[in-house]
Protein backbone atom coordinates (compact mmCIF):
# COMPACT_ATOMS: atom_id res chain seq x y z
CA UNK A 1 0.00 0.00 0.00
CA UNK A 2 1.42 3.39 -0.99
CA UNK A 3 1.78 6.08 1.63
CA UNK A 4 -0.93 8.46 0.28
CA UNK A 5 -3.39 5.54 0.11
CA UNK A 6 -2.50 4.58 3.69
CA UNK A 7 -3.19 8.12 4.93
CA UNK A 8 -6.46 8.38 2.98
CA UNK A 9 -7.67 5.24 4.75
CA UNK A 10 -6.26 6.41 8.08
CA UNK A 11 -8.09 9.73 7.71
CA UNK A 12 -11.38 7.85 7.55
CA UNK A 13 -10.74 5.83 10.72
CA UNK A 14 -12.67 8.24 12.93
CA UNK A 15 -15.68 8.41 10.63
CA UNK A 16 -16.86 9.46 7.17
CA UNK A 17 -15.36 12.63 5.64
CA UNK A 18 -15.79 14.62 2.43
CA UNK A 19 -12.98 15.31 -0.07
CA UNK A 20 -11.39 18.43 1.40
CA UNK A 21 -11.75 17.09 4.96
CA UNK A 22 -9.82 13.95 3.90
CA UNK A 23 -7.02 16.14 2.50
CA UNK A 24 -6.83 18.13 5.77
CA UNK A 25 -6.99 15.05 7.99
CA UNK A 26 -4.26 13.24 5.99
CA UNK A 27 -2.09 16.37 6.25
CA UNK A 28 -2.54 16.54 10.05
CA UNK A 29 -2.07 12.80 10.63
CA UNK A 30 1.16 12.78 8.62
CA UNK A 31 2.54 15.79 10.48
CA UNK A 32 2.35 17.98 7.39
CA UNK A 33 4.25 15.52 5.18
CA UNK A 34 1.38 14.29 2.99
CA UNK A 35 -0.46 17.06 1.17
CA UNK A 36 -2.80 15.21 -1.20
CA UNK A 37 -3.53 16.91 -4.51
CA UNK A 38 -7.22 16.91 -5.42
CA UNK A 39 -6.70 14.77 -8.53
CA UNK A 40 -4.63 12.25 -6.56
CA UNK A 41 -7.31 12.03 -3.86
CA UNK A 42 -10.12 11.24 -6.29
CA UNK A 43 -8.01 8.73 -8.26
CA UNK A 44 -7.28 7.00 -4.94
CA UNK A 45 -10.93 7.15 -3.86
CA UNK A 46 -12.04 5.61 -7.19
CA UNK A 47 -9.54 2.78 -6.82
CA UNK A 48 -10.34 2.17 -3.14
CA UNK A 49 -14.08 2.15 -3.90
CA UNK A 50 -13.52 -0.42 -6.67
CA UNK A 51 -11.47 -2.55 -4.28
CA UNK A 52 -14.22 -2.36 -1.66
CA UNK A 53 -12.13 -0.51 0.96
CA UNK A 54 -14.14 2.72 0.83
CA UNK A 55 -17.82 3.41 0.24
CA UNK A 56 -20.00 6.43 -0.38
CA UNK A 57 -21.80 7.25 2.86
CA UNK A 58 -23.77 10.42 2.23
CA UNK A 59 -24.44 13.08 -0.35
CA UNK A 60 -25.51 16.67 0.29
CA UNK A 61 -25.60 19.95 -1.58
CA UNK A 62 -23.46 22.77 -0.15
CA UNK A 63 -23.37 26.17 -1.88
CA UNK A 64 -24.98 24.61 -4.94
CA UNK A 65 -22.37 21.88 -5.25
CA UNK A 66 -22.58 18.20 -4.44
CA UNK A 67 -20.54 17.17 -1.43
CA UNK A 68 -20.07 13.43 -0.94
CA UNK A 69 -18.75 11.80 2.23
CA UNK A 70 -16.80 8.58 2.16
CA UNK A 71 -16.33 6.01 4.88
CA UNK A 72 -14.22 2.93 5.53
CA UNK A 73 -15.72 -0.49 4.90
CA UNK A 74 -14.87 -3.48 7.11
CA UNK A 75 -12.46 -4.71 4.42
CA UNK A 76 -10.85 -1.26 4.28
CA UNK A 77 -10.45 -1.15 8.04
CA UNK A 78 -8.93 -4.65 8.07
CA UNK A 79 -6.53 -3.78 5.22
CA UNK A 80 -5.45 -0.59 7.02
CA UNK A 81 -4.78 -2.45 10.30
CA UNK A 82 -2.90 -5.20 8.46
CA UNK A 83 -0.72 -2.57 6.75
CA UNK A 84 -0.10 -0.80 10.08
CA UNK A 85 0.94 -4.12 11.68
CA UNK A 86 3.28 -4.89 8.76
CA UNK A 87 4.91 -1.45 9.04
CA UNK A 88 5.22 -1.80 12.83
CA UNK A 89 6.96 -5.17 12.39
CA UNK A 90 9.28 -3.64 9.81
CA UNK A 91 10.01 -0.68 12.10
CA UNK A 92 10.69 -2.95 15.08
CA UNK A 93 13.72 -4.45 13.32
CA UNK A 94 15.38 -1.04 13.49
CA UNK A 95 13.93 0.50 16.64
CA UNK A 96 14.11 -2.56 18.96
CA UNK A 97 15.81 -1.82 22.31
CA UNK A 98 19.61 -2.59 22.61
CA UNK A 99 19.82 -3.40 18.93
CA UNK A 100 20.29 0.17 17.80
CA UNK A 101 23.10 0.70 20.31
CA UNK A 102 24.94 -2.39 19.06
CA UNK A 103 24.90 -1.24 15.50
CA UNK A 104 27.66 1.21 14.71
CA UNK A 105 27.73 3.22 11.57
CA UNK A 106 30.24 1.85 9.07
CA UNK A 107 33.01 4.27 8.27
CA UNK A 108 33.70 4.40 4.53
CA UNK A 109 37.11 3.01 3.64
CA UNK A 110 39.59 5.25 2.01
CA UNK A 111 40.66 3.85 -1.31
CA UNK A 112 44.40 3.75 -1.90
CA UNK A 113 45.37 4.44 -5.41
CA UNK A 114 48.38 2.66 -6.83
CA UNK A 115 51.25 4.96 -7.39
Amino acid sequence: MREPTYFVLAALLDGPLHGYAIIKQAWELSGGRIRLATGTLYTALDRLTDEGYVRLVSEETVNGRIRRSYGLTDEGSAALRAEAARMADAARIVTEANRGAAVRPVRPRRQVRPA
Partner: protein
Amino acid sequence: MSPLERRCRLLMRAYPAAYRRERGDEIMATLLEATPEGRRRPLLRDMRALIMGGLRARAAQNRRFTTAVNLRLAVLAGLCIYLAAIAAGDLNDFVTSEVDRAVPMVGPAGWPVLIAGLLMGAVVALAWLARRPVVIGAAALAAGAATGYVGFPSAAQQAAGRGGLTSAFVITELGCLAAVAALTVRMERRSPAWLWLVGAVVATLLLPGYLRYIPNLWFIWMYIAPGMELCVLVVAVAWIAIDARPLVAVATYLSLSSVPPIFDEIGWGVSNWFFNPALLIPLAIAALAVWRLRRQSVRPGQAVQQ
Protein backbone atom coordinates in the same frame (compact mmCIF):
# COMPACT_ATOMS: atom_id res chain seq x y z
CA MET B 1 -17.30 32.73 -12.38
CA SER B 2 -13.89 33.62 -10.92
CA PRO B 3 -10.67 33.22 -12.95
CA LEU B 4 -9.70 30.38 -10.58
CA GLU B 5 -12.93 28.51 -11.20
CA ARG B 6 -12.64 29.07 -14.95
CA ARG B 7 -9.14 27.61 -14.98
CA CYS B 8 -10.21 24.69 -12.79
CA ARG B 9 -13.05 23.93 -15.22
CA LEU B 10 -10.59 24.00 -18.09
CA LEU B 11 -8.38 21.49 -16.28
CA MET B 12 -11.39 19.27 -15.60
CA ARG B 13 -11.62 18.76 -19.37
CA ALA B 14 -8.87 16.17 -18.92
CA TYR B 15 -11.55 13.87 -17.47
CA PRO B 16 -14.00 12.03 -19.76
CA ALA B 17 -17.38 13.74 -20.19
CA ALA B 18 -19.31 10.98 -18.39
CA TYR B 19 -16.96 11.19 -15.41
CA ARG B 20 -17.28 14.99 -15.31
CA ARG B 21 -21.06 14.75 -15.30
CA GLU B 22 -20.97 12.41 -12.33
CA ARG B 23 -18.15 13.86 -10.21
CA GLY B 24 -17.12 17.14 -11.81
CA ASP B 25 -18.96 19.36 -9.30
CA GLU B 26 -17.61 17.42 -6.34
CA ILE B 27 -14.00 17.58 -7.55
CA MET B 28 -14.41 21.28 -8.37
CA ALA B 29 -15.69 22.03 -4.87
CA THR B 30 -12.76 20.19 -3.27
CA LEU B 31 -10.27 21.87 -5.60
CA LEU B 32 -11.61 25.36 -4.83
CA GLU B 33 -11.54 24.65 -1.09
CA ALA B 34 -8.01 23.25 -1.26
CA THR B 35 -6.60 26.23 -3.21
CA PRO B 36 -5.25 29.00 -0.95
CA GLU B 37 -7.33 32.19 -0.98
CA GLY B 38 -6.31 34.94 -3.36
CA ARG B 39 -4.85 32.66 -6.02
CA ARG B 40 -6.06 33.14 -9.58
CA ARG B 41 -4.92 29.69 -10.69
CA PRO B 42 -4.69 26.27 -9.01
CA LEU B 43 -1.43 25.06 -7.47
CA LEU B 44 0.98 23.43 -9.91
CA ARG B 45 0.76 20.08 -8.11
CA ASP B 46 -3.05 20.20 -8.32
CA MET B 47 -2.88 20.95 -12.04
CA ARG B 48 -0.51 18.03 -12.65
CA ALA B 49 -2.60 15.64 -10.53
CA LEU B 50 -5.83 16.67 -12.27
CA ILE B 51 -4.36 16.07 -15.73
CA MET B 52 -2.89 12.70 -14.71
CA GLY B 53 -6.12 11.74 -12.93
CA GLY B 54 -8.13 12.69 -16.03
CA LEU B 55 -5.92 10.61 -18.30
CA ARG B 56 -6.18 7.65 -15.91
CA ALA B 57 -9.97 8.00 -15.88
CA ARG B 58 -9.94 8.01 -19.69
CA ALA B 59 -7.79 4.88 -19.77
CA ALA B 60 -10.14 3.20 -17.31
CA GLN B 61 -13.09 3.92 -19.61
CA ASN B 62 -12.01 1.33 -22.23
CA ARG B 63 -11.71 -1.33 -19.58
CA ARG B 64 -15.49 -1.52 -19.45
CA PHE B 65 -15.56 -3.10 -22.92
CA THR B 66 -14.20 -6.30 -24.43
CA THR B 67 -11.53 -6.21 -27.14
CA ALA B 68 -14.16 -7.11 -29.77
CA VAL B 69 -16.41 -4.17 -28.82
CA ASN B 70 -13.48 -1.73 -28.69
CA LEU B 71 -12.21 -3.04 -32.04
CA ARG B 72 -15.62 -2.67 -33.69
CA LEU B 73 -15.83 0.95 -32.49
CA ALA B 74 -12.32 1.75 -33.73
CA VAL B 75 -12.84 0.12 -37.14
CA LEU B 76 -16.17 1.94 -37.51
CA ALA B 77 -14.33 5.20 -36.79
CA GLY B 78 -11.68 4.31 -39.40
CA LEU B 79 -14.37 3.54 -42.01
CA CYS B 80 -16.09 6.82 -41.19
CA ILE B 81 -12.84 8.78 -41.59
CA TYR B 82 -12.41 7.22 -45.04
CA LEU B 83 -16.01 7.95 -46.09
CA ALA B 84 -15.86 11.47 -44.62
CA ALA B 85 -12.67 12.15 -46.58
CA ILE B 86 -14.45 11.02 -49.77
CA ALA B 87 -17.50 13.15 -48.93
CA ALA B 88 -15.29 16.16 -48.22
CA GLY B 89 -13.41 15.55 -51.48
CA ASP B 90 -16.71 15.39 -53.40
CA LEU B 91 -17.95 18.63 -51.84
CA ASN B 92 -14.57 20.23 -52.52
CA ASP B 93 -14.76 19.11 -56.15
CA PHE B 94 -18.24 20.63 -56.43
CA VAL B 95 -17.13 23.96 -54.96
CA THR B 96 -14.03 24.02 -57.15
CA SER B 97 -15.97 23.17 -60.31
CA GLU B 98 -18.66 25.79 -59.58
CA VAL B 99 -16.45 28.59 -58.25
CA ASP B 100 -13.34 28.15 -60.29
CA ARG B 101 -14.58 26.99 -63.67
CA ALA B 102 -11.19 27.56 -65.26
CA VAL B 103 -9.76 24.57 -63.35
CA PRO B 104 -10.02 21.46 -65.53
CA MET B 105 -11.67 18.59 -63.63
CA VAL B 106 -10.21 15.13 -64.07
CA GLY B 107 -13.10 13.43 -62.24
CA PRO B 108 -16.84 13.83 -62.27
CA ALA B 109 -18.31 17.22 -61.37
CA GLY B 110 -21.54 19.14 -60.83
CA TRP B 111 -24.67 18.39 -58.84
CA PRO B 112 -24.32 14.55 -58.88
CA VAL B 113 -21.05 14.92 -56.99
CA LEU B 114 -22.70 17.26 -54.48
CA ILE B 115 -25.52 14.75 -53.84
CA ALA B 116 -23.10 11.83 -53.49
CA GLY B 117 -20.91 13.83 -51.12
CA LEU B 118 -23.84 14.95 -48.96
CA LEU B 119 -25.20 11.41 -48.71
CA MET B 120 -21.78 10.03 -47.79
CA GLY B 121 -21.37 12.72 -45.13
CA ALA B 122 -24.85 11.93 -43.80
CA VAL B 123 -23.92 8.25 -43.40
CA VAL B 124 -20.86 9.24 -41.38
CA ALA B 125 -22.86 11.47 -39.02
CA LEU B 126 -25.81 9.06 -38.72
CA ALA B 127 -23.49 6.14 -37.96
CA TRP B 128 -22.85 7.76 -34.56
CA LEU B 129 -26.11 9.60 -33.97
CA ALA B 130 -29.03 7.63 -35.42
CA ARG B 131 -30.78 4.32 -34.97
CA ARG B 132 -29.63 1.33 -36.97
CA PRO B 133 -32.42 1.25 -39.61
CA VAL B 134 -31.72 4.92 -40.43
CA VAL B 135 -27.99 4.20 -40.86
CA ILE B 136 -28.70 1.24 -43.12
CA GLY B 137 -31.15 3.29 -45.21
CA ALA B 138 -28.68 6.17 -45.58
CA ALA B 139 -25.87 3.76 -46.49
CA ALA B 140 -28.08 2.19 -49.20
CA LEU B 141 -28.87 5.63 -50.66
CA ALA B 142 -25.21 6.67 -50.59
CA ALA B 143 -24.24 3.39 -52.26
CA GLY B 144 -26.78 4.11 -54.98
CA ALA B 145 -25.37 7.61 -55.48
CA ALA B 146 -21.80 6.30 -55.56
CA THR B 147 -22.56 3.75 -58.25
CA GLY B 148 -25.18 5.72 -60.15
CA TYR B 149 -23.65 9.18 -60.24
CA VAL B 150 -19.99 9.09 -59.30
CA GLY B 151 -18.84 5.65 -60.35
CA PHE B 152 -20.03 5.69 -63.90
CA PRO B 153 -20.07 9.05 -65.67
CA SER B 154 -23.13 10.11 -67.58
CA ALA B 155 -23.10 10.67 -71.32
CA ALA B 156 -23.07 14.42 -70.64
CA GLN B 157 -20.00 14.08 -68.46
CA GLN B 158 -18.25 11.93 -71.05
CA ALA B 159 -19.13 14.44 -73.75
CA ALA B 160 -17.60 17.14 -71.56
CA GLY B 161 -14.43 15.11 -71.26
CA ARG B 162 -14.99 14.23 -67.60
CA GLY B 163 -14.49 10.61 -66.63
CA GLY B 164 -15.81 8.78 -63.56
CA LEU B 165 -13.82 7.29 -60.71
CA THR B 166 -12.14 3.97 -61.34
CA SER B 167 -14.09 0.89 -60.34
CA ALA B 168 -11.56 0.18 -57.55
CA PHE B 169 -12.55 3.42 -55.78
CA VAL B 170 -16.24 2.69 -56.17
CA ILE B 171 -15.86 -0.91 -54.95
CA THR B 172 -13.92 0.30 -51.89
CA GLU B 173 -16.61 2.91 -51.15
CA LEU B 174 -19.36 0.33 -51.45
CA GLY B 175 -17.41 -2.07 -49.23
CA CYS B 176 -16.98 0.65 -46.60
CA LEU B 177 -20.69 1.56 -46.68
CA ALA B 178 -21.63 -2.12 -46.29
CA ALA B 179 -19.16 -2.48 -43.41
CA VAL B 180 -20.57 0.63 -41.66
CA ALA B 181 -24.10 -0.79 -41.95
CA ALA B 182 -22.94 -4.21 -40.71
CA LEU B 183 -21.01 -2.77 -37.76
CA THR B 184 -23.85 -0.53 -36.57
CA VAL B 185 -26.15 -3.59 -36.58
CA ARG B 186 -23.88 -5.17 -33.97
CA MET B 187 -23.40 -2.10 -31.76
CA GLU B 188 -25.84 -0.64 -29.28
CA ARG B 189 -23.81 2.27 -27.98
CA ARG B 190 -21.87 4.56 -30.29
CA SER B 191 -20.45 7.68 -28.71
CA PRO B 192 -20.70 10.80 -30.95
CA ALA B 193 -17.38 11.90 -29.42
CA TRP B 194 -15.71 9.86 -32.17
CA LEU B 195 -16.86 12.46 -34.68
CA TRP B 196 -14.10 14.72 -33.29
CA LEU B 197 -11.46 12.31 -34.63
CA VAL B 198 -13.28 12.02 -37.96
CA GLY B 199 -13.51 15.82 -38.21
CA ALA B 200 -9.85 16.33 -37.24
CA VAL B 201 -8.56 13.98 -39.94
CA VAL B 202 -10.84 15.44 -42.61
CA ALA B 203 -9.78 18.96 -41.61
CA THR B 204 -6.12 18.01 -42.08
CA LEU B 205 -7.01 16.78 -45.56
CA LEU B 206 -9.13 19.74 -46.63
CA LEU B 207 -7.87 22.91 -44.95
CA PRO B 208 -4.38 22.99 -46.47
CA GLY B 209 -5.99 22.77 -49.92
CA TYR B 210 -7.80 26.05 -49.38
CA LEU B 211 -4.58 27.85 -48.46
CA ARG B 212 -3.75 27.86 -52.15
CA TYR B 213 -6.43 30.51 -52.64
CA ILE B 214 -4.68 32.88 -50.20
CA PRO B 215 -2.24 35.22 -51.98
CA ASN B 216 1.46 34.54 -51.25
CA LEU B 217 0.59 31.37 -49.31
CA TRP B 218 -0.27 29.10 -52.22
CA PHE B 219 3.04 27.22 -52.01
CA ILE B 220 2.77 26.50 -48.26
CA TRP B 221 -0.13 24.05 -48.55
CA MET B 222 2.16 21.52 -50.25
CA TYR B 223 4.28 21.39 -47.08
CA ILE B 224 1.49 21.82 -44.52
CA ALA B 225 -0.75 19.01 -45.82
CA PRO B 226 1.65 16.10 -45.12
CA GLY B 227 2.72 17.78 -41.88
CA MET B 228 -0.84 17.97 -40.53
CA GLU B 229 -1.54 14.34 -41.42
CA LEU B 230 1.70 13.36 -39.70
CA CYS B 231 0.61 15.35 -36.61
CA VAL B 232 -2.65 13.37 -36.39
CA LEU B 233 -0.70 10.11 -36.68
CA VAL B 234 1.84 11.22 -34.03
CA VAL B 235 -0.95 12.25 -31.61
CA ALA B 236 -2.73 8.93 -32.18
CA VAL B 237 0.55 7.05 -31.53
CA ALA B 238 1.19 9.07 -28.35
CA TRP B 239 -2.40 8.49 -27.20
CA ILE B 240 -1.85 4.70 -27.40
CA ALA B 241 -0.80 4.69 -23.73
CA ILE B 242 -4.27 5.98 -22.80
CA ASP B 243 -6.43 4.56 -25.57
CA ALA B 244 -5.29 2.50 -28.56
CA ARG B 245 -8.57 2.86 -30.45
CA PRO B 246 -7.80 6.18 -32.26
CA LEU B 247 -4.62 4.62 -33.66
CA VAL B 248 -6.59 1.56 -34.84
CA ALA B 249 -9.03 3.98 -36.51
CA VAL B 250 -6.29 6.03 -38.20
CA ALA B 251 -4.47 2.85 -39.33
CA THR B 252 -7.75 1.50 -40.75
CA TYR B 253 -8.24 4.74 -42.67
CA LEU B 254 -4.65 4.70 -44.00
CA SER B 255 -5.02 1.03 -45.05
CA LEU B 256 -8.31 1.74 -46.83
CA SER B 257 -6.82 4.78 -48.60
CA SER B 258 -4.07 2.62 -50.06
CA VAL B 259 -6.41 -0.10 -51.38
CA PRO B 260 -7.88 1.59 -54.51
CA PRO B 261 -4.50 2.78 -55.90
CA ILE B 262 -3.06 -0.70 -55.26
CA PHE B 263 -5.99 -2.31 -57.12
CA ASP B 264 -5.35 0.07 -60.01
CA GLU B 265 -1.61 -0.61 -60.01
CA ILE B 266 -2.21 -4.35 -59.98
CA GLY B 267 -4.62 -3.89 -62.89
CA TRP B 268 -1.93 -2.00 -64.78
CA GLY B 269 0.66 -4.65 -63.86
CA VAL B 270 3.03 -2.24 -62.06
CA SER B 271 2.58 -3.38 -58.44
CA ASN B 272 2.68 -6.41 -56.20
CA TRP B 273 -0.17 -6.49 -53.66
CA PHE B 274 1.74 -8.20 -50.89
CA PHE B 275 4.83 -6.02 -50.83
CA ASN B 276 3.30 -2.58 -51.06
CA PRO B 277 4.54 -0.42 -48.15
CA ALA B 278 1.50 1.89 -48.49
CA LEU B 279 -0.59 -1.01 -47.20
CA LEU B 280 1.91 -2.95 -45.09
CA ILE B 281 2.97 -0.01 -42.88
CA PRO B 282 -0.61 0.92 -41.83
CA LEU B 283 -1.36 -2.77 -41.25
CA ALA B 284 1.74 -3.08 -39.04
CA ILE B 285 0.63 0.03 -37.08
CA ALA B 286 -2.86 -1.47 -36.76
CA ALA B 287 -1.42 -4.77 -35.47
CA LEU B 288 0.59 -2.90 -32.80
CA ALA B 289 -2.49 -0.89 -31.77
CA VAL B 290 -4.70 -4.01 -31.59
CA TRP B 291 -2.10 -5.74 -29.41
CA ARG B 292 -2.16 -2.73 -27.07
CA LEU B 293 -5.96 -2.58 -27.22
CA ARG B 294 -6.20 -6.18 -25.97
CA ARG B 295 -4.29 -5.16 -22.85
CA GLN B 296 -6.61 -2.17 -22.33
CA SER B 297 -9.86 -4.13 -22.69
CA VAL B 298 -11.75 -6.23 -20.22
CA ARG B 299 -12.03 -10.02 -20.60
CA PRO B 300 -15.34 -11.21 -22.11
CA GLY B 301 -16.76 -12.56 -18.82
CA GLN B 302 -16.07 -9.31 -16.95
CA ALA B 303 -17.59 -6.79 -19.38
CA VAL B 304 -19.71 -4.21 -17.58
CA GLN B 305 -21.53 -2.80 -20.57
CA GLN B 306 -22.41 -4.24 -23.97
